[in-house]
């Protein structure tokens, strides 16, 4: 290697990642510990305290039904991360397995799966989500399944492309010649190389899912009340923007922070 390769890395990236990790940890901490520490019931209403400003009784104010924003946000953050984590895990698993299968088997299976993936991409993702949600409106699992159904394609495409180029690399061929089986090659040669890319994708995915759920709530397909969830809260509070801008903007702020954290952590790279 000549000296040309020196000094090409960006010093800014790790710092951004660190910031993302810290932000994510803070949010996760808030979501995981918040519901334990904050005693207020996120569903408890006091209509006389509707839109109460931040103060001694409600640290972050109250929403339109007089519920504690702090308690609701803590629960919402936990649920949003849980839900998006679940969704991304499901989509990631499906996409990765199919992608590996397509890369490994090649031929008709590969062509068929790729065509299917391209086709799913051409369909409006929201169509799939809406249709699956319609089976059981307001429930968490169908919501996650629906989004996963649209999300797996991204994992599939990346896995397939990466695995294909990895499988064509000499060290995989060498491993085969050395008598190693599929399981070994997958476990020790392919997955360790794929992992960072898949994690990046998952980071973007989690951010994207939180946004998608928020968007779905906006067109009134969300979770059942009184479930506190960031997207639902965003659209619930939107009409009160003029009267109580602080409370109305808080959920959006948390969505943005969560997405920002995921993006920073996943790196500035586009998908």
């Amino acid at each position: 290697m000549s000296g040309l390769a020196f000094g090409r890395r960006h010093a800014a990236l790790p710092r951004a990642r660190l910031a993302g990790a810290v932000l994510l940890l803070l949010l996760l901490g808030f979501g995981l510990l918040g519901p334990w520490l904050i005693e207020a019931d996120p569903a408890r209403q006091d209509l006389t305290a509707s839109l109460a400003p931040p103060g001694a009784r409600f640290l972050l104010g109250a929403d339109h039904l007089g519920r504690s924003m702090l308690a609701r946000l803590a629960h919402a953050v936990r649920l949003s991360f849980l839900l998006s984590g679940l969704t991304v895990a499901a989509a990631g698993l499906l996409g990765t397995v199919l992608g590996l299968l397509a890369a490994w088997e090649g031929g008709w299976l590969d062509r068929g799966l790729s065509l299917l993936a391209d086709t799913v991409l051409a369909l409006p993702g929201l169509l799939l989500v809406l249709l699956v949600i319609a089976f059981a409106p307001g429930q968490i699992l169908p919501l996650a399944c629906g989004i996963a159904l649209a999300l797996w394609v991204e994992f599939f495409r990346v896995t397939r492309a990466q695995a294909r180029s990895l499988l064509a690399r000499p060290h995989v061929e060498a491993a085969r010649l050395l008598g190693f089986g599929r399981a070994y090659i997958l476990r020790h040669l392919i997955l360790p190389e794929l992992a960072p890319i898949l994690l990046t994708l998952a980071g973007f995915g989690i951010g994207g899912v939180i946004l998608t759920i928020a968007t779905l709530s906006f067109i009134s397909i969300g979770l059942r009340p009184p479930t506190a969830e960031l997207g639902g809260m965003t659209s619930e509070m939107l009409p009160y923007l003029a009267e109580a801008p602080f409370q109305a903007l808080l959920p959006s702020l948390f969505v943005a922070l969560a997405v920002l954290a995921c993006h920073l952590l996943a790196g500035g790279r586009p998908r």
Partner: protein
Amino acid sequence: MSGHVQLRGLTVRAADGTPLVENLSLAARPGTPLVLLGETGSGKSLVLQAIMGALPPRLRRTGEVVLDGQPLPEGRARRGLWGRRIALLPQEPWLALDPTMRALAQVAEVCRLVRGMPPPASRAEAERLLRDLGLEGVARLYPFQLSGGMAQRLALAVLRAADAPLLLADEPTKGLDAERRDEAALRLRDEAGRGRTVIAVTHDIGVARILGGHLAVMLEGQVVEQGPAERLLARPAQDYTRRLVAAEPAQWPMPSAAPRRPAGEAVVAARRLGKRFQGRAVLEDVDIAVGRGETVAVLGPSGCGKTTLGDLLLGLLRPSQGEVRRLAGLAPWRFQKLYQDPPSAFAPHQSMREALRHLGRRHGLAPAVFGGLLDRLRLPPALLDRRPAELSGGELQRFALLRALALDPVFLFADEPTSRLDPITQREVALLLRELVTERDLGLLLVTHDAALARRMADRVFTIEAARLSPAGCAG
């Protein structure tokens, strides 16, 4: 044409102060090429970058570069000399040419934008330059449609268009096979003959021999020996230079003169073998057999199908016609392969120890097997904990040998196993391989584009031409 260059106390340091090039003082003048010969990491490319003023940002340079009696200006002003006074022929020009622009346009734009010629004159001039280099047929082709040699000539035409008196060439033969390599070196010498000052950097003694002129041998950032190329290569004074000269395959000892044992039973044999890729015949009617304890070399330029032949024999590819027979009753892993690019043959995140442990567990091998092989291949156990990126090409190739030998192979397909290695390492690895063939009673198929290497290594040598295999003549 002017173009006298002097390097005065040129030093390049890394950010932490480690010297990468130390106190270099050299001179070059028109007509006589200056050749910097050295291994990877000897700092020779940095010298060229220092002259261009294109060092990576974190490196520090001291000392002076003087062109025609004037120290070269620093920073942005140096940029103004690019193309006009100093030209740099890039490594692997097929990567440096714009893949989206036709050959003629790439030359013509220099005439127009650098020399300020009007468009029609630029085209005419570009056509002339291409013709001079025998490229008249490719004017309308894109770089990816050119062979490596043609791409190299095209890059040269581009640089000629600006007509700089000083031509720098960074590993001008990297990635070219033997014949193209000689051709490229000759052309560069020709450039010097046309009154240009040529400074070339190479690790290939053959190239240095062809270029002639003034030769400086570099080791770890310093010039260990310099002088006229002819004298230096014939009578090297320094030990390092001597070893370097001896590393040329033509200088290697011939296989032991004693009559060789007759080849053992055939471990791999192919009859009427043929392979087509997308309708194009790569191999046709190939008959070949490799016996125990025998080395068979297949010679040919890149892309002639010699790797395909090896992969067919190993069963990595399915033949389009004919059949391959391997010695019956053996586990498939008794047939092994050595790769051209050693780092790519190892999982990048696995240390050697981990890789070998997995191999041992898979085949139930005792740790002692690896211990013995480490000794035999002269690999210090300390290297075991390194990952591929932390090992040199020679070390990696020996680890590749180690893991193959651990499985007690009967057949080894070596695909240009030494072409990416530095000369001295190449010699070590190749000779080690030769010893092992006899020692282990291996059948070795060696694929290479270096005729001298093939002759020094193999019992039988074949060439591939127009998809057909034939025994090599006595030439080469």
